[in-house]
């Protein structure tokens, strides 16, 4: 492990933490434009975070320590996740320590703490949100894993960087298996990050809300951390998508300064495109009823499994 | 000498108690005589183990490991039952279910019954064995009707007629045997019914006649063993007679009858060079196991329940004898032993339970473990033992029997498996609420004298964990005699 690998590692994490709000801002901007609204500033998310951090924190009486720990844990896991996902380079020191399965486990841990925290105060909304979140989770997680497994079957490894290496080396064109799993992945991404059509982050309508319901009891810095974590999560998912399906530009093999010089702009461009794409999808689709969500995710899961089967069938 | 004692003591006891059986101390006398018989039996056993087979009383009596072990078992259970019946029958007397006169009858007949069974076991003469078996029926039939209730009379009548008719068939079989033997052994007719001689020449006996003879003997003695479909008398007689009698009927009489069947099987197999005898035994055994386990399912009377379980276990033993071979025979003998010990102990506890709750209807017996812990645990452990749960000895024999069956008669194993499962469900689902559960009755002040129960269970437990070598050799020798 040379110094530059470490630099890349740190850079990735820092970049993720720094850029996540911006990405959300960009997404909202695109949405606004697509809906002919005046777009909010790209920096709005940063201002929100700043404002929240300066506020005085209020915690419900019935809250246990778990409630206060949760935001830090959630945020921390998301940051760590950002370190695992090869968004710029693939020769990362953390490669060995956690592979894709561990990554999914990490997301699961974040979700678990979030839901437990939501149930901690014991309000109607919190528990309701927790239930819905888990309902999303227990279908989204397997789907995500299956998506990853298709790639790892191709590259015979579950370590994301290795997968990216393998795919980026362009030895294969788009495999049919991957095509299926790409569709599945997009569905999972929407669901996991509380985007339309699964959830609408912009409203507090109790009939539909999931993520908002869980963080309803949070305020100030705790809320800020939760929001930031959410933004990070979105960012991470997009990066996973890149790693699996659009690995181009990522500095593979031994990383030189040149590699980074290519990788960073490439990432920026990909992010911009992805944001626009997501905005488009969200604009085109309508929010669905909560009980339809499982079917939505079931489809995703099915697609993923299909992808795997197709790969086993044709891939050899 | 020992043999003389063994046979004289019960007769003497019968005579004595026939005169003085109504006195206060009659139960003790009864127990004392049984104890003496047991000691004689032990002495006999020791002698046989030391010096091998015995041939006594101008060949009329023949003792080999096979029957000497049954003799000891019979004498032992006879003794423990006498001990048990001492307080039990007194209580019955106090409850006014009996009169001193009937008690006298009970005691003398009890001794007579012991005598007939010991005679049937020890005699070398097939004819004499028949006489003794008939005698066993006659001596017990009046004990079954001891309470003079309509049900007991009915039971007694059925017992008498069915077993009488059966035994008549057995006599015919014996005659056929005699005919066939006479051909070989010469017609002076003295030796032609002696088992030893028959055994010596069995290979020369005429097959067809022996096959017929075996059928008659099987139907005859099989009736007393309680093989389905000849079993109909058994549950009634067990359920309606006084408990000690149920215990000895189920624990001893069935064994002795099975002994007779096996003795004849040995002869016939020697002559008939076909599978017929073993096939018949296996068939009867399986049918008995299956039907009995099914009928267990419907029982409401506690003693009836265990009567059917006796049929089931006799079926298992018969099946094992039918399979033949050293291991199966060994297992069958072991099964006879543990069954008679376990079953008699179960009847003891069941009797106490019925006595304390004043009913034999199982759905009216509840929470024995609170009423009287010893009775409760006795019944629970006894039932578990009889159901073949280790570490009790019944498991040992069933282990050997089933594993043998798996290799030699695999077709039978599914049937056995199903039957055993059904029997387990049937018995345990009825015993559990009787032992456990709520009860209205108060805890009884005095604990019942259950020494015999726990003595039996202890032996059964021992046999499950460790079979003493000499006992094992003994069984092996017996198994060998039966034709391992």
């Amino acid at each position, binding site marked *: 492990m040379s110094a530059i690998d470490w630099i890349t590692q740190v850079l990735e994490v820092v970049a993720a933490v720094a850029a996540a709000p911006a990405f959300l801002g960009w997404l909202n901007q695109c949405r606004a434009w697509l809906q002919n609204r005046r777009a909010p500033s790209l920096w709005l998310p940063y201002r929100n975070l700043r404002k929240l951090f300066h506020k005085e924190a209020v915690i419900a009486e019935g809250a246990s320590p778990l409630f206060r720990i949760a935001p830090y844990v959630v945020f921390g896991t998301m940051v760590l996740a950002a370190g695992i996902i090869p968004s710029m380079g693939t020769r990362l020191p953390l490669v060995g320590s956690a592979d894709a399965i561990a990554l999914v486990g990490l997301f699961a841990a974040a979700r678990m703490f979030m839901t437990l925290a939501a149930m901690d105060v014991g309000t109607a909304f919190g528990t309701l949100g927790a239930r819905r979140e888990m309902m999303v989770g227990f279908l989204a997680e397997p789907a995500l894993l299956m998506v990853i497994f298709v790639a790892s079957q191709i590259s015979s490894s579950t370590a994301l960087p290795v997968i990216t290496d393998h795919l980026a080396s362009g030895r294969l064109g788009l495999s049919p298996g991957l095509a299926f799993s790409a569709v599945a992945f997009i569905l999972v991404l929407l669901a996991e990050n509380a985007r339309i059509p699964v959830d609408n982050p912009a409203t507090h309508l109790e009939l539909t809300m999931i993520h908002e319901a869980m963080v309803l009891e949070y305020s100030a810095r705790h809320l800020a951390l939760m929001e930031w974590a959410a933004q990070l999560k979105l960012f991470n998912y997009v990066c996973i998508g890149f790693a699996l399906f659009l690995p181009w530009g990522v500095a593979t093999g031994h990383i030189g300064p040149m590699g980074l010089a290519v990788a960073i702009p490439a990432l920026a461009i990909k992010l911009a495109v992805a944001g626009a794409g997501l905005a488009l999808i969200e604009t085109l689709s309508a929010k669905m009823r909560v009980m339809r969500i499982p079917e939505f995710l079931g489809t995703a899961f099915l697609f993923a499994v299909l992808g795997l089967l197709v790969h086993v069938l044709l891939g050899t | 000498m020992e043999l003389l004692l063994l046979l004289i003591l019960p007769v003497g006891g019968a005579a004595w108690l026939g005169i003085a059986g109504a006195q206060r101390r009659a139960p003790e006398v009864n127990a004392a005589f049984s104890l003496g018989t047991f000691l004689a039996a032990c002495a006999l056993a020791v002698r046989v183990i030391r010096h091998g087979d015995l041939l006594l009383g101008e060949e009329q009596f023949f003792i080999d490991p096979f029957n000497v072990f049954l003799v000891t078992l019979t004498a032992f259970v006879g003794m423990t039952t006498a001990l048990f019946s001492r307080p039990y029958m007194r209580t019955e007397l106090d409850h006014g279910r009996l009169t001193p006169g009937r008690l006298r009858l009970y005691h003398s007949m009890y001794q007579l019954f012991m005598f007939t069974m010991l005679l049937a076991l020890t005699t070398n003469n097939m004819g004499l064995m*028949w006489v003794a078996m008939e005698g066993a029926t006659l001596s017990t039939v009046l004990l079954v009707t001891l309470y003079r209730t309509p049900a007991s009379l009915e039971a007694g*009548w059925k017992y008498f007629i069915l077993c009488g008719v059966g035994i008549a068939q057995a006599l015919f079989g014996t005659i056929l045997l005699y005919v066939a033997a*006479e051909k070989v052994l010469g017609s002076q007719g003295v030796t032609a019914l002696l088992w030893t001689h028959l055994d010596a020449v069995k290979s020369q006996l005429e097959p067809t006649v022996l096959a017929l003879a075996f059928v008659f003997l099987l139907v005859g003695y099989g009736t007393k063993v309680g093989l389905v479909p000849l079993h109909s008398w058994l549950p009634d007689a067990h359920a309606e007679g006084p408990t000690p009698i149920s215990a000895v009927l189920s624990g001893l009489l069935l064994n002795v009858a099975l002994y007779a069947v096996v003795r004849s099987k040995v002869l016939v197999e020697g002559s008939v060079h076909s599978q017929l005898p073993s096939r018949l035994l296996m068939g009867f055994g399986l049918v008995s196991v299956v039907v009995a386990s099914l009928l267990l399912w419907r029982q409401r009377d506690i003693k009836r329940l265990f009567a059917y379980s006796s049929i089931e276990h006799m079926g298992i033993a018969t099946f094992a004898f039918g399979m033949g071979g050293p291991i199966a025979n060994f297992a069958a003998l072991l099964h006879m032993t543990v069954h008679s010990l376990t079953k008699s102990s179960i009847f003891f506890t069941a009797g106490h339970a019925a006595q304390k709750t004043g009913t034999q209807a199982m759905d009216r017996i509840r929470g024995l473990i609170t009423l009287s812990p010893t009775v409760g645990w006795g019944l629970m452990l006894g039932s578990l033992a009889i159901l073949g749960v280790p570490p009790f000895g019944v498991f040992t024999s069933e282990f050997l029997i089933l594993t043998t069956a798996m290799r030699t008669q695999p077709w039978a194993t599914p049937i056995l498996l199903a039957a055993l499962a059904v029997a387990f469900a049937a018995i345990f689902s009825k015993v559990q609420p009787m032992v456990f559960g709520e009860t209205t009755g108060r805890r009884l002040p005095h604990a019942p004298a259950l020494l015999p129960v726990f003595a039996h269970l202890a032996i059964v437990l021992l046999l499950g964990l460790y079979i003493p070598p000499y006992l094992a050799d003994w069984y092996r020798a017996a198994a060998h005699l039966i034709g391992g």
Partner: protein
Amino acid sequence: MSPLPLGQQLLDTCAALLLLLSFAMLSQRRVVALVNLYALQGAVLAAATLLLAWRTGEDHLYVSAALTLVLKVALLPWLLHRLIRRLQVYRDTEPLLNVSGTMLVGLVIVVFAFSLAQPITRLASTATRSAIGIALAVVLLAFLMMITRRKAMSQVVGFLSMENGVLFGAMSASYGMPMVVELGIALDVLVAVLVLGVFFFQIRERFDSLDLHHLESLKEHE
């Protein structure tokens, strides 16, 4: 072929008589007559035994003949008659299977018994081997009679005549059993009848009738 010697013919006649008597018992409905028939059967048996004793010169056969005479002609019938008088049971009710039917079945059974007896006959060395089939038939017919009767008394008579059949079989197949066994059997039969006597009184005092349908309460099927 030479005609059979006289004794042989007499013996065969006895055998035939026995079979005839069994059929008569099978059809007979009046208990008293039944007992008489039983006594008669005993008499024929005794006669046959005597004949055999005389022809073979086996002295233990004399004893058993005497035994039969005393027991089955005199003692048991007398006991039974006393019982009948004391218990006032004269007629059996309609048998479960009507007479003609019973007869038919009996016929089939006789045929079966004869075919069954073939191997034994071939084996037996006695002058009377031909009678074995008859003995077997008598046993089975008695069995049939016990099945078809409804009164305890007639069932008992059937039981006893079965005993007769068996003894006749023993005699015709091998000139009787060893003495000790014969004695034992006789003893058992005697005791059996005594026990039965006791029984009848017990049943009577409970049900004041000897009809067997009183004795059908213990069963599995409701």
